[in-house]
């Protein structure tokens, strides 16, 4: 009886070789030291680097489980066991196809692509109504006739954006309050000017 075949030895981990920031050529030979200088073999750029322990962490790979008879299977990979249901379209998806959506949702790849095309704003983008209202209220003062249009616009945007999500890093309300006060003063001045002209005619 023949002995069972030996298991193939696992391949050695790949050396850390990030792409050059300029020409994308893999920077070989820089993973040994934690800091130093290297020269890119592609574009001869001198790269100064500082490295951290996580560079040697093996990359995790999502591995799907093969399905057996009776298992629900992935819509895109019939040979893989389904592990989730897409929250958008209801298709079964395997480990490889399961993608995170906003608010903890689980989506399939076509629904993620469709979601990106629908919204004009990207997931990591936010409209900052406070900055917009602040700029519209203050900047046109340099050319004051423009405030006839920008003051009402600033006031509307400030009121509309009052409850909307604000900047992550500067979430304070002072810009909105300033925009409301300044635009109200500007509108008041225009109304006063209009009334005085009408009275004098």
């Amino acid at each position, binding site marked *: 009886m023949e002995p069972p075949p030996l298991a193939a030895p696992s391949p050695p981990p790949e050396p850390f070789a990030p792409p050059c920031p300029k020409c994308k050529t893999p920077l070989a030979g820089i993973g040994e030291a934690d800091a130093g200088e290297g020269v890119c073999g592609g574009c001869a750029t001198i790269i100064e*680097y*500082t490295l951290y322990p996580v560079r040697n962490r093996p*990359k995790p790979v999502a591995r799907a489980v093969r399905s057996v008879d009776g298992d629900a299977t992935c819509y895109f990979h019939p040979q893989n066991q389904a592990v989730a249901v897409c929250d958008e379209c209801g298709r079964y998806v395997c480990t490889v196809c399961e993608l995170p959506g906003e608010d903890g949702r689980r989506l399939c790849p076509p629904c993620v692509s469709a979601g990106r095309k629908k919204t004009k704003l990207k997931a990591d983008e936010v409209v*900052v109504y406070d900055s917009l209202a602040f700029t519209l209220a203050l900047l046109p003062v340099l050319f004051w006739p423009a405030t006839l249009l920008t003051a009402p616009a600033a006031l509307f945007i400030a009121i509309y954006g009052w409850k909307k999500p604000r900047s992550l890093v500067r979430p304070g309300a002072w810009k909105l309050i300033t925009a409301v006060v300044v635009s109200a003063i500007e509108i008041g001045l225009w109304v006063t000017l209009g009334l005085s002209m009408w009275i004098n005619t």
Partner: protein
Amino acid sequence: MARKPKLYQKLARMRGSVGTHFTLWLAADHVLQVEANMVTERYQRVFLRDVQGFFMRPSREAKWATIIGGVLVALFCVLALSFGGDGAAVCWAFAGLCSLILLYGLFFARNCHFYAVTAVQRAEWTNIARRGKARKLIARLDPLIRAAQQDVSGAP
């Protein structure tokens, strides 16, 4: 009423072009780059536990600004010394204006591009434009990153 604690502290000064500017902020476990215009803000996060390394490559902007500023200043100084009277005063005035270009090249122009690299992204931190500032930033983030990556397996 107690004020909410600030989640972010500023890491680097604002830098950018007309209409768009970049700022860099530090939270407890990540660095946030904000690209802002008048209407929107876009965020790019790099988590400290994911940082594989920082990379810096040179930029020629500072070199060219210094060379051009220096040549113009020298040229106008020579002209000012050659002329007399009002001509010299005008040349000295232009030399003074061109010295602003020279100062910009020496102290403010970009002399490096700075990148934070993780396993899945390479983030260029646009407002880290000077080598000295980059080294100070690395010195500030280094202990935080090493603390966040203390339990990483596979470390040498």
